[in-house]
């Protein structure tokens, strides 16, 4: 028992995420094989990976925002708007693809800038700021777009429908974005500041960091990635749709994926790798339940339970392992007995 606990303690939260993913995978293989299907057939792999792409883009952006101590609830509406702009500008003309993509991402960046400025400069909590911006966009969408709009050209649609082996191109682009976001976090000054601001904004401020910059940067990147998700959806659907973002419930689902990936909701701690693990867990879970033809209402029950149970696994571990950061003195028992403030205000 003690042996197990110490093995468990040595794992970082990212490792545990992938351990949970591995357990999900094994479970998936057993269940899917039990009804005479193959989990590893190309169609199934492609189905799982397709499931990771859209949520993946949004969750990467959400990770940055959450690391900076904020939240983004406007992502579904940005995604819908992006799909409409892309399909509208391209209008089934292959020559317009580049301008469509640039205009879409530019608009998304402007929305992200607005989010960031409201959060950083007007001191509105991210929850309310992005909820408000989301509502503003949603009213705009409902007023100006009647159902689907525009059309994406064949060349652009192939992005969403082609794959290398069973791996969709969209997944590869998503992973590339994840890599870039990882570089930003670990290799740039803004990235380091992002962790600092999310960890303790007051300390960051007193140590001379311009706290606005990382927060605004994170919001801009998050919206741009939501815009990427919109582009991907425009590619897969062939048209833009004013509801495609809210259909996926990507706001709460992306936050859940981020936290499932071991990132602290209060900011300052977490990794992109972990988030990808969280997204993969969700995608496999959905796939398994669809193959097993689970009642749609029960799917939500399973999802809800899994989110809580999985996070509970690392959340407990985080407390246990905390004393190790100060190994010099102090008994191990006292911090465990006392509630340690994991989340700050």
């Amino acid at each position: 028992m003690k042996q197990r606990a110490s093995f468990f303690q040595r794992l970082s939260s990212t490792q545990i995420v992938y351990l949970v993913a591995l357990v999900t995978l094994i479970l998936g293989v057993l269940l899917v094989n039990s009804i005479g299907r193959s989990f590893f057939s190309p169609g199934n792999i492609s189905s799982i990976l397709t499931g990771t792409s859209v949520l993946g883009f949004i969750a990467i952006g959400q990770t940055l925002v959450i690391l900076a101590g904020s939240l983004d609830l406007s992502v579904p509406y940005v995604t819908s708007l992006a799909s409409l702009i892309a399909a509208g500008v391209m209008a089934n003309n292959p020559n317009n693809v580049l301008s469509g993509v640039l205009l879409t991402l530019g608009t998304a960046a402007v929305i992200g800038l607005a989010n960031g400025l409201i959060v950083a400069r007007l001191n509105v909590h991210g929850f309310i700021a992005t909820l408000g911006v989301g509502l503003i966009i949603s009213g705009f969408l409902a007023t100006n777009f009647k159902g689907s709009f525009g059309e994406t050209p064949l060349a652009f649609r192939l992005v969403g429908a082609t794959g290398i082996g069973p791996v969709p191109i969209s997944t590869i682009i998503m992973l590339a974005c994840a890599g870039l976001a990882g570089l930003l976090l670990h290799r740039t000054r803004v990235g380091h500041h992002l962790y600092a601001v999310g960890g303790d904004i007051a300390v960051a401020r007193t140590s001379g960091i311009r706290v606005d910059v990382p927060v605004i940067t994170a919001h801009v990147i998050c919206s741009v990635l939501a815009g990427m998700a919109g582009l991907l959806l425009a590619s897969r659907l062939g048209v833009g749709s004013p509801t495609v973002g809210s259909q996926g419930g990507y706001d709460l689902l992306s936050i859940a994926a981020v936290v499932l990936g071991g990132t602290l909701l209060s900011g300052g701690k977490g990794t992109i790798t972990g988030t990808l693990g969280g997204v993969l867990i969700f995608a496999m879970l959905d796939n398994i339940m669809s193959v097993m033809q689970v009642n749609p209402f029960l799917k939500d029950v399973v999802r809800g339970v899994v989110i809580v149970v999985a996070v509970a696994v690392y959340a407990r571990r985080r407390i246990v392992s905390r004393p190790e950061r100060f190994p010099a003195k102090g008994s191990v028992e006292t911090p465990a007995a006392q509630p340690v403030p994991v989340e700050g205000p």
Partner: protein
Amino acid sequence: MRNNSVRAIALAAALPLVALTGCTTEPSVTQTTGTGTGSAAASSPASKDWFDQSLYDTQNQQRSATFEGNPEQPYLQYIAGPMRDTSKFKAPGAHKVCFANASISNPWRQTGWITMNQQLKALQGTGVISEMETRDAKDNDNTQIADIDYFIAEGKCDAFVISPNSTAALTQAVERACETGKPVVVFDRGVETDCATTFIHPIGGFAWGIDTATFLSERLQSGDKVVALRILPGVDVLEHRWAAAKKIFEEKGIQAKDYFTGADPTKIKNIISDELATGDVKGVWMDAGDGAVAALEAFEDAGKKLPVMTGEDEMSFLTKWKQTGIDAMAPVYSNFQWRTPLLALEKVFKGEPIPAEWVLPQKPILKDELDQWLQRNQGMPSGHYAKFGGEDLAGYPEVWQKRQIP
């Protein structure tokens, strides 16, 4: 050390996936989209207005059309038109059906889904269908596209039934299903291709709008106020209802004010209360019957005269209509259409011709038929739809009374 074990575990989780990347061949998605997507490019659904005069005129005519077939089995009736030859699909034995469903997120779809499952059991009993594999997209276009692609790649389906979540977005996925050479049945909402073996639907939203708005405008004066309670924007089935009604209200000089309610009775009651506070409301129009009772209760609580009203064939509205004795009608978006796709496949597997576009009857419930429909649906819960059309199926009435969803 720590970093190494991260990689080890990540690798262990990803290894089977990676290994497969190496050894699989091109997935069917790649092959099919190349050929499939080209044909959809013709139509561009970029209209900013839902009103469509030609659809309006067609559906207006279909309201009074004669339907082929036995009126006792409305789910098999259709308007005469081009038939589809299905002799190439003729095959004996039991077949596997794959059903890509948009969702069961509202009572209308749930009622239909229950009926469909009882129909399935009947056809399994007669050996026409071996099993039906269902994927539910939870109202998500992207998920439904992936569902259809999964069926094509992995389902070993003998036939596809698709209830599209939205029209334009699902078009290419339906075309990919068509390219498998298996029969494809589309029902409820359509897609922008006629590659499917048949497209099953009741007359449509414009007919609903014409029925209801005509009913109200016949009973109201020019200048009277009607409150229009709509569920949500952007869904074609619902938008067509309002587009037609709005046109008629404008023509007749009836002042109609529309609201989105999300089918939430709380919002409906607030809206009606506010409207009653600012002036008289003579009529209530709904694009779906959910929450009709709350609208009437708002009049009761404010002590105002009850309005002329159009609801839907939903049980709570029918019951309240009977109780209050108001001047009302219940338009119908025929719920029995959920039986038809499987029955159509039965014909297809026998090689019998079926209508290329299978337009089902959509007859509103008027005052003189109210008692009869209440009688037929005694004991049904409030989210049940009177014209569900499953009275002759096994499990009637308990399955519908208890809303047993598999």
